[in-house]
């Protein structure tokens, strides 16, 4: 995009180019455009004045969609005209972030023709983030991206772009097909993704095992974490090899670090009390050749995590301790539908589902969506008394 260039002095930002670590300033300067010049200029000014100069939101978008474009305007457009409009576009990433080099060239070529050329690969939700576009270029970008097989992701009060770890494509610990589940839910809920109808955002993340490589336990309203419900698989010969190798002290590095103390090592045999295993993955990570998740695999569903934007941060808590993750995921979709119906109807504006549950109480929430409480929902006895069992229930028990 050709525009009059004005070289900006950026002494404060220039300091961020020093040192051995990556520098976003250095990367922005490489793009060598008027938009990049003014972007650095307005940021330098923010550093000097210690205030932001962006206005956010408004009416921008593409025809038919309510998500995927985040309006951004400079509040000093006369001084930085190239970034007077600097909208962000979120593009639905491929499941597991697998690209061909041709796909990457296609995206970046489109963005250099119509936008700033600057990208963020990837945003915290997982989308391809295209940074900086004028309003008049939004529809042309959208048209070219969709022609190339891409679509916008979510923004605003909608289901945000689901994301997943690489799952069974590359990882032997994956307890279900994360990429398949992520793709299925993305396709099923296109309306919820593109047409905001919720009190606030709703994120779905799919992790293949409790290592949780997409941080679903911290960053998603509904988290699907792969687990197994049978025993950890033990290769006794490989356990001995670890012991003989001398690099790993099985007692100190594995058993003593088990959060429930469910492992015993007598110098020759590793015994696991699987009933008390909480699937933390520590032992499997420490001895990957000797230990592996069991064969009866599925996922635990957790609910309610969020980053600290409006209120404080929340970690997700267990909602369904184990479910088989098999297409077409009908039980999960039924559960999701009941959650969305309740939250959409009674949630306050900008209230995440985790905050909604805190406000109404987990017991009431469960009753409304028709899910029975289970002991796994309690992190520790008497620590989070969400559930109050009635006397009759206690007597029966």
């Amino acid at each position: 995009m050709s525009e009059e260039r004005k070289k900006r002095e950026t002494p404060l930002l220039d300091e961020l180019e020093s040192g051995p670590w990556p520098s976003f300033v250095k990367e922005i300067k490489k793009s060598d455009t008027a938009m990049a010049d003014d972007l650095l200029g307005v940021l330098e000014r923010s550093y000097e004045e210690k205030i932001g100069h962006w206005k956010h939101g408004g009416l921008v978008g593409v025809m038919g969609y309510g998500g995927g474009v985040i309006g951004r305007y400079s509040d000093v457009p006369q001084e930085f005209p190239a970034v007077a409009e600097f909208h962000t576009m979120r593009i639905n990433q491929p499941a597991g972030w697998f690209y061909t080099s041709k796909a990457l060239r296609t995206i970046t070529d489109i963005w250099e023709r119509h936008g700033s050329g600057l990208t963020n690969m990837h945003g915290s939700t997982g989308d391809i983030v295209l940074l900086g576009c004028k309003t008049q270029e939004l529809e042309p970008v959208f048209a070219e991206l969709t022609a190339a097989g891409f679509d916008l992701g979510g923004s605003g009060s909608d289901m945000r772009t689901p994301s997943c770890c690489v799952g069974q494509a590359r990882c032997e610990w994956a307890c279900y097909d994360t990429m398949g589940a992520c793709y299925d839910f993305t396709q099923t809920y296109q309306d919820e993704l593109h047409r905001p109808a919720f009190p606030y955002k709703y994120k779905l993340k799919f992790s293949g095992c409790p290592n949780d490589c997409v941080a679903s336990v911290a960053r998603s309203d509904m988290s699907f974490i792969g687990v197994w419900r049978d025993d950890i698989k033990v290769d006794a010969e490989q356990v001995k090899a670890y012991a003989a190798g001398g690099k790993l002290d099985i007692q100190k590095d594995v058993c003593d670090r088990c959060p429930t103390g469910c492992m015993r090592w007598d110098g020759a045999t590793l015994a696991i009390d699987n009933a008390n295993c909480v699937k933390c993955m520590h032992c499997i990570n420490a001895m990957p050749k000797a230990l592996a998740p069991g064969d009866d695999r599925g996922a635990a569903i957790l609910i309610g995590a969020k980053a600290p934007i409006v209120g404080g941060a929340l970690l997700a808590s267990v909602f369904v301790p184990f479910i088989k993750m098999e297409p077409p995921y009908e039980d999960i979709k039924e559960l999701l539908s009941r959650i969305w119906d309740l939250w959409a109807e009674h949630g306050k504006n900008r209230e995440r589902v985790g905050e909604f549950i805190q406000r109404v109480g987990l017991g009431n929430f469960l009753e409304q969506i028709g899910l029975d409480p289970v002991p796994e929902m309690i992190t520790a006895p008497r620590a989070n008394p969400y559930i109050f069992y009635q006397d009759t229930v206690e007597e029966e028990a």
Partner: protein
Amino acid sequence: MSVSVDQVAEAMFQLVTETHGKKSLKAMDLTKAMIEKFGAAECDKELCKHAIRQLMDSGRCIYSYLGGSYITLPPDKA
């Protein structure tokens, strides 16, 4: 249901027009209003979802983001 998507879309559009500049409406606000207007037996959330999609795809309404996603009139029609 005897109420059509077109009828619900039209009623939603009228509501958005009447409240424009006075009250911001979310999709759920419109849905609740339509269920109240036509009755739960004649109008449900799914029908309202289709009506909102029709309003968006036709360009009669657009989404705005002002601390939440709202349904409003396009700037040139307001």
